[in-house]
C-alpha cells in the first residue's frame, strides 16, 4: 500500500517534471528577490509571457504533426504592421485593421500549408522561406519606418485590463483552454496526434493528413498574427523589426514542455509551462540584476538542464 503510494508519487513527478522545474525556478527567484513573489510582479510575468504563449500554441499544433513553423516571428511583424497600417494610414479603423492583420495571418499560414502538402516541401524549408518573405514584405509595407498613431481602442488590446487582468493574459488563458479542448476532445485534435504519430497509418484509416497539416499551419499563422497585433498594441506602434528571433522562443516553449519534435506526443499544458519557464527566467534574472548578456547564457543552460532532466525521467520508464 505504502509502496504503491510512493510509486504513484514518482509517476506524478515524472509526468509533470517540467512543472516541477518551473516551481524550482520560481522558488530560487523568490528566495533571491523579495519582489518576485508579489501579485503585481506575477501578473507582470503573465503579461510578458502571454504573447509568446499565444504564438507557441499555434506552434504546438504544427510540432504535434511532426512539422514546424519558422515563419512565426516574421508573420507577427507583418500582420502587426498590416493591422496598424490599414487602421491608421488607410483609415480602415481599429477593427478593420485588426481584421486585415488576422486575415493575413490565415492566408500566410495557408500558403505555408499548401507549400508543404501540395509542394511536398519539408516544413522547415517552406516556413524558412516564408520567414524571409514575410520579413521582407514587412519592410516593404512599412518602408522601414514605425507606424504610430493608433487609436485608444487598438492599444486597449495590448495594454488594457478587464476585471483587473491584462487583456493579453485573458486571451492567452482562453486560447490555451480552447486548444486543450480541441486537442483532447475533438476528432481534429485526435487526427493531429495521429498525423504526427504516423502519417501513412492515418491515411489508411481514411483520414486525410493533408487537410490536418493545412489546418495546423493556418492555426499557426493565425496565432502568430494575433500575437503580432497584440504586440503592436502593447508597443503603441508597429515596428518593422519587431519579433526577430521569436520563433525560437515559440519552439522552445513546447519543446521544454515535453512536446516531441518528432510529432504525436505532448499536450498544451506542457506548452504553457514551457512558456512560463522562459518568461519567469527573463523576469527573475532582471529582478536579480543579471546583465542581459549573461541572461542569454543562463537561459540556454537552464533549457539544456530542463530537457535533460525530462529525458532522464522519461527514459527510466
Amino acid at each position, binding site marked *: 500500500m505504502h509502496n504503491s503510494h510512493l510509486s504513484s508519487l514518482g509517476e506524478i513527478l515524472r509526468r509533470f517534471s517540467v512543472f516541477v522545474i518551473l516551481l524550482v525556478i520560481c522558488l530560487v527567484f523568490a528566495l533571491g528577490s523579495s519582489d518576485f513573489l508579489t501579485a503585481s510582479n506575477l501578473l507582470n510575468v503573465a503579461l510578458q509571457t502571454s504573447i509568446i504563449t499565444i504564438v507557441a500554441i499555434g506552434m504546438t499544433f504544427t510540432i504535434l504533426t511532426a512539422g514546424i513553423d519558422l515563419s512565426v516571428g516574421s508573420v507577427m511583424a507583418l500582420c502587426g504592421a498590416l493591422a496598424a497600417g490599414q487602421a491608421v494610414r488607410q483609415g480602415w479603423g481599429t477593427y478593420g485593421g485588426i481584421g486585415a492583420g488576422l486575415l493575413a495571418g490565415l492566408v500566410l499560414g495557408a500558403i505555408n500549408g499548401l507549400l508543404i502538402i501540395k509542394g511536398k516541401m519539408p516544413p522547415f524549408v517552406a516556413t524558412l522561406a516564408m520567414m524571409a518573405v514575410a520579413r521582407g514584405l514587412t519592410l516593404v509595407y512599412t518602408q522601414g519606418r514605425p507606424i504610430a498613431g493608433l487609436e485608444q481602442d487598438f492599444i486597449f488590446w495590448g495594454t488594457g485590463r478587464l476585471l483587473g487582468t491584462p487583456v493579453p493574459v485573458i486571451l492567452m488563458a482562453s486560447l490555451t483552454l480552447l486548444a486543450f479542448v480541441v486537442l483532447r476532445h475533438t476528432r481534429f485534435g485526435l487526427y493531429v496526434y495521429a498525423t504526427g*504519430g504516423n502519417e501513412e497509418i492515418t491515411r489508411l484509416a481514411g*483520414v486525410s493528413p493533408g487537410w490536418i497539416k493545412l489546418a495546423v499551419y493556418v492555426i499557426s499563422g493565425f496565432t502568430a498574427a494575433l500575437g503580432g497585433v497584440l504586440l503592436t498594441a502593447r508597443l503603441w506602434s508597429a515596428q518593422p523589426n519587431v519579433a526577430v528571433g521569436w520563433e525560437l522562443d515559440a519552439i522552445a516553449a513546447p519543446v521544454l514542455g515535453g512536446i516531441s519534435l518528432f510529432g*504525436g506526443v505532448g499536450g498544451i499544458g506542457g506548452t504553457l509551462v514551457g512558456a512560463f519557464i522562459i518568461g519567469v527566467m527573463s523576469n527573475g534574472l532582471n529582478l536579480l540584476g543579471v546583465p542581459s548578456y549573461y541572461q542569454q547564457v543562463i537561459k540556454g543552460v537552464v533549457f539544456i538542464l530542463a530537457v535533460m532532466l525530462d529525458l532522464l525521467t522519461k527514459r527510466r520508464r
Partner: protein
Amino acid sequence: MSANDVFLRMEGISKAFPGVQALQDVTFEVARGEIHALVGENGAGKSTLMKILTGALPRDDGRIVMRGQPVEISIPSDARSLGISMIHQELSLIPYLTVGQNIYLGREPQARIPGFIDWSALYAQAQQLLDRLNVDVDAHAEVQELSIAQQQMVEVAKALSLNADLIAMDEPTSALSERETEVLFDVMRTLEKQGVSLIFISHRLGEVFQIADRVTVLRDGQLIGTAPIAESDEDRVVQMMVGRELGEMYPRAEVQRREVVLEAIDLDDGRELHGVDLRLHCGEILGVAGLVGAGRTALAETLFGIRPAVAGDVHLEGRQVKLSSPGEAIRLGMGFVPEDRKLQGLFLNMAVRENIVISAMDKLTRWGFVNFTKADRMAREFVDKLDIRTPGLRQRVRNLSGGNQQKVIIARWLTLKPRVLILDEPTRGIDVGAKAEIHALMSQLAQEGVGVLMISSELPEVLGVSDRILVMHEGRVAGEFDRDQATQDDIMRAATSGKANDAQ
C-alpha cells in the same frame, strides 16, 4: 466444397509491373469460415494478390466475386465496405495513441456536439471487441506499452470493428513466441467458428499445417495449386513453393568442438538477465531458445556491450574483458546481427557496397580518403562468397529481398573476420529458400572456426541448426541440451516452466 460455400473468388487475376509479370492468371478461392493459408517464396506474388484484394493496387485483368456477386475493388475503402480487412506485417498502429483510439481511428463515435468525440462510448465499444477476442488488453492503454502479440490482437479487434468477415493476415506470427502464437491461433479459431474467413500468409509451414484448412501455393506469379491441408504434407508444399527438391532442410556437417572462445559467468544486466552462465566454443553453433521476454535479446545485447552488465565476468579467448560498448566488442572480434535488420542493421538508402565495407574503413582508407577500388574489390568478394543476389554493388539495400539484406549484414561482419558472431532471429521474415542459405552460411562460418550464437524463436530451426541449445526462462538459463538429446518437448518445457526436467 459446394459452390455456395465460396465466399471470395479471385478469378484470372493478372498484374504486371515494368519488367515483371507479378501475377499471371491467378485464381484464388476462400470459403466462408475457413482459414486459408497462402504461401510462396518472397516475390511469388502473395503481397501483390493481397494488395489487389484490398484495393491498394489496381489489377490488369481478372475479376473478383464475393458472396456470389461480382464486386469492384479499386480503392481501399471499397474493400473495407465489402468487409475485407488486412493485417500487415508492419503493424499499422500509432504507438502514442491508446488502444481504443487506434481501433476507431477515422471512425470515432461522435458526441452530441459535432466534431467532438464520445470517449466513453469509444472505450466501451473497444473493450467489448477485445473481450470478444478473449484477450487481456486494456482499451485505455497506450499501444507502445503493449507487446507485439497484444498489438496483433488490437489489429484483429480493429478489423472486427470494421465488421470484416474476411481478414487477411500477413505473417502475423513472425514476431510472436510459440505461446503467443498459440493465443493468436485460438483467436483465429474463435473467429473461424463465428463464420469469419481468414487468409493466413506465413513462411512457417509448421504453423500452416497446424492452423489452416487449405493451402494455396504461388510461385513466380503463378498459381501452383490449392490443396486441403489434410491431403498434403510439408515436403510437398515446399516442393511446390521452390519448384525443386530442397534436399535436407538443415544440412549440417559434423564439427569438432574446439576451445572455448566466449565465456560468460553469472552475467546480470540488473533488469532482464539474472545470472546467466554461457560457454561458446570455436566452430560451434549455440542456439538460444526461449519465449519472447525470456531475456534472449538482453543476453545478446549485453554480450555485445549495447547494454551494460551490472555483474558477471566475460572471457574472450581466455582473457577477461570488459564489454562497455559495441565498438569495444567489435575491436575484440565480436559481431552482432540484430533482430530488426531494417532498424538496427542496415543503411537502407545506401548502396550494397557501402553497407558491406562500412565497418572495415580502417583497411580501406588512407589519410581519411577512401580507396574505392579496394572497397569495390572487398564488396565484390563478399557478394560472390555469400551469393548475395543484387543487380550491382551500387544497388540500394532497400531494394533487396529480406534474405539478401540479411546476407549483406553478415558480409559486413565477415569483413572484420570476427571470432564470435551473434545472430538474433537471423531468418525472421525470410523465405524458405533463402533461409536454407543463411543456415548453410552459419554452418560454414562455424566450420571456419567462428563461434556462432544464434537466437531463434523457431524451434525447428534451433533444433536443426544448433550443435548445442541453451533455453532461457525469465532471465536465467533453464536448460542446456546437446543437439542429439534435445526434443521440441524438452525445450518447450524448459522455456515455459524454467525447469529442464531430467535433461541435465
